């Protein structure tokens, strides 16, 4: 075992909040990184992945993460002064959460539909929480409100 001494009295990682999982969301791939994971199936083989993650601190801040998410589905980056115009806010468990939503212009390789990503992010107890839905744009068009309702059901 390591020679380092672990400090006493340290606070534990924030536990998962309570939430209400929408009907139709099937359990998705679980991992040590995901606090929650679901798969949504749509018509014509469409699908979306829903992931809840949380990390200590601000993990780089909104702009850096926004551009990283945009790159993940092939959407060009934005500058700091563009952020306000492409984000909105909702209330989650008494905390203001930021919503971002963007769609690729064309399908990525191997996909038949352009990909869309909706992320709701908030800070709570020193952690950054991310509620992210990624998948086929037409399916996400029908699921965005469901995602927002899910996030609004979160109770820390």
């Amino acid at each position: 075992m390591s020679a380092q001494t672990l400090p006493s009295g340290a606070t534990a990682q924030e536990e998962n909040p309570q939430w209400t999982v929408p009907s139709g969301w099937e359990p998705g791939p679980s991992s040590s990184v995901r606090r929650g994971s679901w798969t949504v199936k749509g018509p014509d083989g469409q699908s979306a992945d829903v992931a809840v993650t949380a990390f200590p601190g601000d993990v780089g801040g909104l702009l850096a993460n926004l551009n990283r998410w945009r790159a993940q589905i092939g959407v060009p980056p934005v500058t700091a002064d563009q952020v306000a115009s492409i984000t909105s806010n909702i209330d989650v468990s008494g905390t203001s959460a930021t919503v971002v939503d963007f769609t690729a212009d064309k399908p990525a390789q191997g996909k038949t539909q352009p990909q869309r990503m909706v992320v709701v992010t908030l800070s709570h107890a020193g952690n950054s929480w991310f509620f992210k839905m990624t998948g086929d744009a037409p399916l996400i068009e029908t699921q965005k409100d469901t995602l927002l309702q899910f996030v609004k059901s979160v109770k820390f």
Partner: protein
Amino acid sequence: MNDYQWAETFRHCYDKAVTLYRLGNRKAASYFSQEETAFLASIGCTAQELYDFAEDWCRDETPSFGTTLLITAARRDFFLTIQKGKPPTGTIRMEDLPAKEAEIDGFRWLPRILSKARAKLRGEMPSELMYGCGGDRAFLRKVNIHPADFLRVVWAAREDDQKVIDCVKKTAAAS
């Protein structure tokens, strides 16, 4: 399965991986026989993970076999004692990880390596991700924690990120 000899058997596999890499074979899946693959699985290790260590050794002469063995031993211990020898059902997704630029309390890379360490302990590493990569080594060298020791710190901290953060702060301050 000869548990007493596991480190020697692992050394055999490691040396084989280094030899094959130097011969130009870049297909990790082709490196090991069925028996060798089964041995690696019994200690919670994959061909890709061993390939990555061999590659970095051949290219950069780091990490050493000693470090590779210690990292593998930490994973093996977690696999056998906590997971009872049962492998996970999947791997983490790269897009779920914190960015390399993310920092906490001034320690850039710490959020990312913390997630990587948990995934490494649990055998959830995707093929494109290496625990103990150059970025990890640079961070751990800076805060003066051996890569295998960091895994054990994360293990001991369980789900308490703050314990790991405080440990890193203390070690970095003392170095």
